[in-house]
């Protein structure tokens, strides 16, 4: 087997993004893939690996994606419907390039707005089997239902308040006002946040990411190949997944110390860098509390202290760790983790502009998911 290669991000791309675009999953997948190729200055024939992650009911496979855009032969491919969203595709792609299984890997996350909330609600008199038979009769249908439980548990253990979660929503909206690609660009006040309706009290509507049609694609290749391409490469320094003893989101053994803590600990064990070295973060915000659990798990603040940390402005530009500088999925729409990899890549290239660039950013961290499964990665500018 080839020796381990250093892996670089060399191309990033998005599809058309919005509510009910009318575009098929295949169309969106092809759009983001072609955009990532253009960003990298690569042709489809230069790609020899494709990895996708998808909801099972919205699946466009890796071989199908390759066929769509004319990748002639795949040395490596993989499709997953299990686990931590886009980061699963990313870590498969990184591992494939690092191991020499392929040299240039396209990684894709495509999502349709409709039915995105966990496969939806049974129609009519349809009965539910599997684990959901123990949830739906009690009124637990969506991520919002477990998210409310996680928030309440954190509030109980650490004195966190709704205003603390709101402070995160307000801070990342401030970044979104500087991102021309964000879908929500009006400033958000704490009153706006607190006035947004409860879904599962204490969870407000504005704690939730925004379901859209979108596809995101990133291309990874070896350091040697990356040097010859269009954009300044950024490199994966370390990466890790983590899971919990009990994988189900509702029954997980410790809601305030779920999978992000395991993934983060493992990632820090694999690098010489430390939290103090990180300039910018992209932390998954399927719900605001998830990003806040990552702030604690990654060591940017103490255990249980994410609320006061966020309220003190530490995730804003000029704070200890500027976080979700694109505005997060609450504001750019649900890219299911891929937007963090793309935004942090662009931060380390120094190309985001718009008053949201972290000056001289050299190290970034990205993360995805919570509860039963999670993953994170550390990127460097050189």
């Amino acid at each position: 087997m080839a020796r381990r290669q250093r892996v670089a991000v060399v191309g990033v791309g998005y599809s058309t993004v919005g509510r009910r675009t009318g575009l098929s999953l295949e169309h969106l997948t092809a759009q983001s893939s072609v955009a990532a190729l253009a960003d990298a200055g690569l042709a489809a024939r230069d790609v020899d690996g494709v990895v996708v992650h998808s909801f099972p009911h919205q699946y466009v496979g890796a071989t199908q994606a390759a066929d769509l855009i004319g990748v002639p032969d795949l040395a490596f491919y993989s499709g997953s419907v299990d686990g931590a969203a886009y980061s699963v595709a990313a870590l498969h792609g990184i591992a494939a390039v690092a191991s020499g299984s392929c040299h240039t890997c396209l990684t894709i996350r495509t999502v349709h707005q409709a039915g995105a909330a966990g496969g939806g609600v049974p129609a009519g008199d349809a009965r539910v089997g599997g684990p959901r038979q123990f949830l739906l009769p009690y009124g637990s249908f969506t991520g919002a239902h477990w998210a409310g439980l996680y928030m309440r548990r954190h509030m109980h253990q650490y004195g966190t308040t709704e205003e603390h979660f709101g402070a995160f929503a307000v801070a990342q909206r401030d970044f979104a006002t500087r991102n021309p690609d964000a879908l929500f660009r009006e400033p958000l006040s704490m009153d706006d946040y607190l006035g947004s309706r409860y879904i599962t009290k204490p969870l407000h509507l504005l704690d939730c990411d925004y379901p859209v049609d979108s596809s995101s694609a990133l291309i990874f290749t070896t350091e040697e190949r990356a040097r010859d391409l269009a954009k300044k490469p950024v490199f994966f320094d370390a990466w890790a997944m983590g899971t919990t003893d009990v994988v189900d989101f509702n029954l997980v053994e410790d809601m305030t110390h779920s999978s992000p803590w395991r993934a983060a600990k493992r990632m820090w064990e694999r690098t010489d860098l430390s939290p103090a070295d990180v300039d910018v973060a992209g932390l998954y915000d399927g719900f605001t509390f998830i990003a806040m659990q990552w702030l604690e798990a990654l060591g940017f603040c103490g255990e249980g202290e994410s609320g006061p940390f966020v309220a003190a402005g530490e995730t804003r530009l000029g704070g200890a760790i500027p976080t979700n500088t694109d505005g997060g999925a609450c504001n750019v729409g649900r890219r299911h983790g891929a937007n963090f990899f793309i935004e942090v890549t662009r931060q380390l290239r120094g190309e985001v502009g718009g008053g949201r660039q972290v000056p001289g950013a050299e190290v970034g961290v990205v993360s995805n998911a919570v509860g039963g499964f999670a993953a994170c990665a550390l990127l460097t500018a050189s």
Partner: protein
Amino acid sequence: MLRSTRLAPAGRLEPDARGRSGGEETLTTARPEPRPPLPAPDPLTSFFWEAARRRRLAILRCDDCGWYVHWPRPVCKRCRSFSLTPTEVSGRGTLYSWTVGMQAFHPWFEDRLPYLLAVVELEEQANLKLVTNLVECDESQVEIGMALEVTFEVVSPELTLPMFRPAQGA
């Protein structure tokens, strides 16, 4: 019923054939009464629902090492035995976390808002948890760690749900 926050302790609904309170009989609307989301029991899970119908809470337990597993599964995650038996448990536990359902994601819940959704840790074993509704207590009385006990609500002719209420005498 599921409208936990509106049920006074004295007003707890006893199961009847329709699982509905009698007063609603007089409401005549064109809309058919929605049914609750119903489980599709299989050979692994049917014991749970059958026990609930008999007003019992049963959890799968390993014949070889005594470990409880929930949700039902074919294998003990502690000793890898495939020999597990549904076992009645005390129905006592503590509240691990809770949230208030404020939006109906299914027609059944439209006139049952708000409802209390909870994770309860059973006393038999650390981390032996289930998802349930809290009933017979007001939102203002709910506190993580509070002692709870199982109760049973006949929510429809086909479905009796184990739910939890504050432990009597706690």
